[in-house]
């Protein structure tokens, strides 16, 4: 198709905004850990921008979006971005290289999300290996299944902007990480307080604006569907914040700022798969429920006792799952869900979510075990005591 400058303008900026989410996540996570781990935590998100960019050029884009092989993976036609043109390709009004850049940003943030699960105790070399292996063995295949012409696309699974590919996928991996690496020293006994909640709110704000690029940008054109997605994204985020705050006010007697920030993220996660398929009113419902549900997920975690340090499972896993199913229920724009007479869609959504969970759990487990055998996953107890910043990076976050 011919290049459209409006669509291209939109996608250039949307791509920039999605890039911005990863450092936003770094700050969001960085604010939540103890100050002795603030830099290490930031680093674990930030460096994904380097690791994944490099892999993407070499073989990542090709595996995810290269011509399909057996409905499960792309072939190697696009290695080193060979055959990826800066002109428009078939079926799109933007340059191919721009689509490739936009998708790169998604591949970057997904492993970054997982790092919240093993925050404050993972060795740096183990982290490096984990990101490289996980993005290669888990992200590229699942991305191909849903968006690259793989079997979930064929099945008709709806995932507008990555509820399954990104959130359920990373949430499932996070659960495995939290369990395999084990609890932080002193977890459940010592008070492990955030070092800088204003920074976490800043991170949430950056995620929020970036998410407009993420969700509306997934329309790939600057048209009505992008506009709808932007509106549903805003509503789910705002009402997600409200939902979480009201739930904790009711249950714990206090509405917290961290609750507002977390609820916004929960709403954003939940609306991701359906943002271009549902009407604004349903976006309010999806976001509000997400805020309450993810909060309850965290309470449940505390009961069960695994140490998902920054609550990736409850927010991205649970929130993503709710969003994927809700899409199957409330979709009415360009596709129909249960409520609009198509119960089959809900089944398909469940299959997609289930497949991603099972695949992600199994492969993540194997990756962790292999890395543990090679370099060890976890810093020693003394190092954990001193903090990763000094031990792994010879730096301290603040001298204020």
């Amino acid at each position, binding site marked *: 198709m011919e290049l459209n400058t409006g669509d291209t303008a939109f996608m250039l900026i949307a791509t920039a905004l999605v890039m911005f989410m990863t450092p936003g996540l770094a700050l969001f996570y960085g604010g939540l850990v103890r100050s002795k781990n603030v830099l290490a935590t930031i680093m674990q998100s930030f460096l994904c921008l380097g690791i994944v960019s490099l892999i993407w050029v070499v073989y990542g884009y090709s595996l995810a979006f290269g011509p399909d092989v057996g409905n499960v993976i792309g072939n190697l036609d696009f290695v080193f971005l060979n055959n990826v043109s800066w002109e428009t390709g078939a079926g799109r009004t933007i340059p191919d290289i721009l689509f490739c850049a936009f998708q790169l940003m998604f591949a970057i943030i997904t492993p970054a999300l997982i790092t919240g699960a093993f925050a404050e105790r993972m060795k740096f070399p183990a982290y490096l290996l984990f990101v490289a292996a996980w993005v290669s063995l888990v992200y590229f295949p699942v991305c191909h299944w849903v968006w690259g012409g793989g079997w979930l696309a064929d099945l008709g699974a709806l995932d507008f902007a990555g509820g399954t590919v990104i959130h359920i996928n990373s949430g499932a991996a996070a659960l495995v990480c939290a369990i395999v690496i084990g609890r932080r020293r002193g977890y459940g006994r010592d*008070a*492990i*307080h*955030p070092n800088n909640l204003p920074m976490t709110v800043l991170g949430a704000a950056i995620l929020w604006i970036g998410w407009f690029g993420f969700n509306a940008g997934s329309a790939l054109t600057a048209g009505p569907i992008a506009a709808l997605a932007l509106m549903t994204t805003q509503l789910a985020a705002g009402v997600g914040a409200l939902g979480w705050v009201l739930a*904790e006010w009711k249950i*714990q007697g*206090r509405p*917290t700022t*961290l*609750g507002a920030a*977390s609820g916004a993220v929960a709403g954003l996660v939940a609306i991701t798969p359906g943002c271009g398929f549902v009407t604004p009113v349903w976006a309010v419902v999806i976001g509000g429920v997400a805020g309450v549900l993810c*909060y309850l997920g*965290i*309470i449940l975690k*505390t009961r069960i006792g695994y140490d998902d340090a920054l*609550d990736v499972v409850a927010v991205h896993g649970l929130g993503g799952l709710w969003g994927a199913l809700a899409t199957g229920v409330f979709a009415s724009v360009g596709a129909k869900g249960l409520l609009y007479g198509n119960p089959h869609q809900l089944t398909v959504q469940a299959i997609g979510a289930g497949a991603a969970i099972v695949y992600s759990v199994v492969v993540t487990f194997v990756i962790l075990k292999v890395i543990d055998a090679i370099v060890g996953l976890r810093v020693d107890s003394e190092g954990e005591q001193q903090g990763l910043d000094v031990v792994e990076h010879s730096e301290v976050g603040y001298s204020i």
Partner: protein
Amino acid sequence: MKKIEAIIKPFKLDDVKDALNEMGLKGMTISEVKGYGRQKGHTEIYRGAEYVVDFIPKIKIEIVLPADQVDLVVNKIRAAANTDKIGDGKIFVLPVERVIRVRTGEENRDAV
């Protein structure tokens, strides 16, 4: 020479400083400390978990002065720092054997 150490509520610092200033006492050293005592702390919430924080911010004032001024100063501090609520703090008096001013080398009474 004696040293007075007073643990007070942070927002009373200005009052205490002014009271001591009035009586001509113009030297002191303060630091931020945390106190644990009968006064109850507050609760903090972090994503569904609650913690009681027992350590309460206080200001510690240290004043070294000749022994004959101790009573007066102790009374001034008490008067200024008192709010009649639990947690108002304590005053300790310790002996000091020598005081030296770094700049001049003056000692004791002349040094403060």
